[in-house]
């Protein structure tokens, strides 16, 4: 693992003017659209509350609903597989694919397959995965990571995309211009071949209904519909938190998701399938239920609601930190505010411990989240865990931050010590003050003076002024 943190990765992307421009433009547009279509629904707040409550109560009895889902899927002709972690899930998918003697699969946008790093595992087994979502395809061709939950290639411009297509699409890419219609036409022709010649498809799932065994995929391009209907075999991978108890629950989520995600009243394609049907669609259907750390999140009463997330990406689109630092700074398929809480919980704080700090706690995410996840609260909770784990080591105890916090907390609990330290501070700052402000401070406060002056301590604190006033009365 490299030593890169959110801070160091952001430092790089902050200087990338193309990226800054792309993200600013995209998020500003989408913010306006989502704000309009959520405001037009008189019961939007009620829908949010309903969504939150359905998720909460479902998670409270998750085991029951998952078993019900397994029964329904099996009854409808599908097969359910349980995967404890990413390795198990990869092994299941590779095994199922190999059983059909194929050397390629088509994929419909699925963050869960990115989470378990399925593509490298497939490639390792001699199976070539083709992403069919336009943006995912671009990211795959560029051998990059996605930079936005729903718009994974948000960081790319069309010249870069044209070059990728020319390079990798064979005859479809020859002499291609960078006009968006030409680019999408080429992608369409290229993908059409893949849809027709590939026998195994891999998908994620937005929802799965326990009572009927139906699985739901919501998308915009129609590539999903192709993947879900044309091949002989369909393998869907979903996190265990995606289950909904009743068919009726879809009413709430199929309103919440498109409006919060893309600012559309209804997304262009909603595919719902239940097991297998002779003579129509895939002949074989497998559903992989993935835990991979989710049951651990469920056990934590504060961060549990992380699992409410329906991956709409609205929190990214309103986040001032995401807008400037960009998706790659999060080094994860989950970016932005939700990424800052999900990734450390899935990957562990050792690997992603800088993410809970990637927020000014402004609360814009919590304000708009369609299922009302209190992301700032969870960020602070995770910071607590980072501090706790560091405190367990001697080095962590001696760290500048821990010592400063200890000193501050003693001072704040001791009046006289506080007054004395203010006096000492006034004396000490004489060296650093120029024209009433401090333009430079030593590390770790040098981060502040990178771009901001610090005010000098005034000669008299408020409490001294008050005392003087009381004495003079």
């Amino acid at each position: 693992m490299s030593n890169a943190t959110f801070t160091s990765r952001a430092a790089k992307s902050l200087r990338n003017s193309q990226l800054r421009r792309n993200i600013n433009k995209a998020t500003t547009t989408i913010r306006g659209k989502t704000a309009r279509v959520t405001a037009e629904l008189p019961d939007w707040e009620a829908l949010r509350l309903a969504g939150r409550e359905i998720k909460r109560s479902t998670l409270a009895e998750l085991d029951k609903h998952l078993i019900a889902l397994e029964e329904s899927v099996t009854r409808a002709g599908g097969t359910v597989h349980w995967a404890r972690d990413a390795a198990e899930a990869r092994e299941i998918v590779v095994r199922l694919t190999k059983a059909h003697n194929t050397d390629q699969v088509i994929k419909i946008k699925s963050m869960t397959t990115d989470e378990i790093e399925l593509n490298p595992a497939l490639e390792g087994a001699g199976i070539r995965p083709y992403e069919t979502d336009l943006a995912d395809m671009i990211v795959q061709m560029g051998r990059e990571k996605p930079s936005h939950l729903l718009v994974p290639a948000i960081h790319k411009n069309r010249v870069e995309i044209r070059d990728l297509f020319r390079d990798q699409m064979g005859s479809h890419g020859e002499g291609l211009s960078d006009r968006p219609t030409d680019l999408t036409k080429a992608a369409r022709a290229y993908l059409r071949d893949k849809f027709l010649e590939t026998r195994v498809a891999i998908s994620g799932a937005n929802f799965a209904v326990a009572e009927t065994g139906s699985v739901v995929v919501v998308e915009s391009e129609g590539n999903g519909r192709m993947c879900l209907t044309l091949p002989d075999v369909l393998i869907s991978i979903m996190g265990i938190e995606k289950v909904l108890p009743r068919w009726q629950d879809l009413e709430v989520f199929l309103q919440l998701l498109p409006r919060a995600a893309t600012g559309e009243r209804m997304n262009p394609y909603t595919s719902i399938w239940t097991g297998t049907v002779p003579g129509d669609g895939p002949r074989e259907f497998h559903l992989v239920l993935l835990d991979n750390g989710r049951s651990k999140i469920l056990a934590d009463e504060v961060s549990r609601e992380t699992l409410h997330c329906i991956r709409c990406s609205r929190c990214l689109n309103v986040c001032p930190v995401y807008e400037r630092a960009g998706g790659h700074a999060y080094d994860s398929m989950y970016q932005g505010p939700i990424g800052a809480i999900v990734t450390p919980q899935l990957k562990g704080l050792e690997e992603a411990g800088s993410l809970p700090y990637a927020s000014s706690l402004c609360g814009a995410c919590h304000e708009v989240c369609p299922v009302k996840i209190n992301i700032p609260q969870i960020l602070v909770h995770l910071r607590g865990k980072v501090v706790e784990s560091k405190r367990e080591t001697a080095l962590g105890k001696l760290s500048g931050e821990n010592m400063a916090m200890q000193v501050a907390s003693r001072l704040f609990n001791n009046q006289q010590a506080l007054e004395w330290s203010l006096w000492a501070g006034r004396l000490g700052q004489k060296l650093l003050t120029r024209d009433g402000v401090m333009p430079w401070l030593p590390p770790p406060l040098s981060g502040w003076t990178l771009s901001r002056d610090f005010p000098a301590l005034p000669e008299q604190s408020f409490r001294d002024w008050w005392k003087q006033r009381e004495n003079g009365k």
Partner: protein
Amino acid sequence: MRVSLFITCINDSLYPHTGQAVVRVLERLGHEVVFPEGQSCCGQMHHNSGYAPEAVAMVRQFVEIFREAEVVVVPSTSCTAMIRTQYPHLARHVAKDAALLEAVEALVPRVWEFSEFLTRKLGLTDVGAYYPHRVTYHSSCNSLRSLGLGDGPLTLLRHVRGLDLVELPNNTECCGFGGTFAVKNAETSTAMLTDKMRHILSTNAEICTAGDNSCLMHIGGGLSRQRTGVRTVHLAQILASTAEAPLA
């Protein structure tokens, strides 16, 4: 009314003029102000940095000191938000102390942010202020989201005589302070601050005000570094200024 002032650590040590202004406004309106000894910090810095047990100690201290208060007034939106939204959380999930939770829940409804106290508790829009300057107002994230103060502070500003109020574009966006965020992620924070300053400068205001000196320390620190000539002044200081005794 007998108002207990919780000054907050930043105001106490760095911005005593804000506290003095609060006292001036409240006394001018005929209220008695008391300043309970032994108060210090709301614990926000510790809590937001992940030092929850240390923050709990400050919750206990706050409850101890203000338990009997008729009302507590706080000239800081973020400290008020800390008390209102995070004290119950800390008592329940970190201290796991039912007695503390009960004491917190009994006290919280009597804790008011300064402008909120004027507009919502006292029902005022005009406090008799005079401040002949061109001013823009930054609604802090906590004022907007945690406290839901809405237009309250703006209404107070609109009733200040002589004041030329200019709307700040993109007003709901964070200034990039975020406590330790400004230090730990200094570069991202700076990018946010730059955009905030760009909007402030576009108003041609000479002063940017807010209900929170931590945002203002951040914004003002940037405006000062860039030699923009624009100052930051806490809302209380504007409201304290009168034609007879004008404040800078």
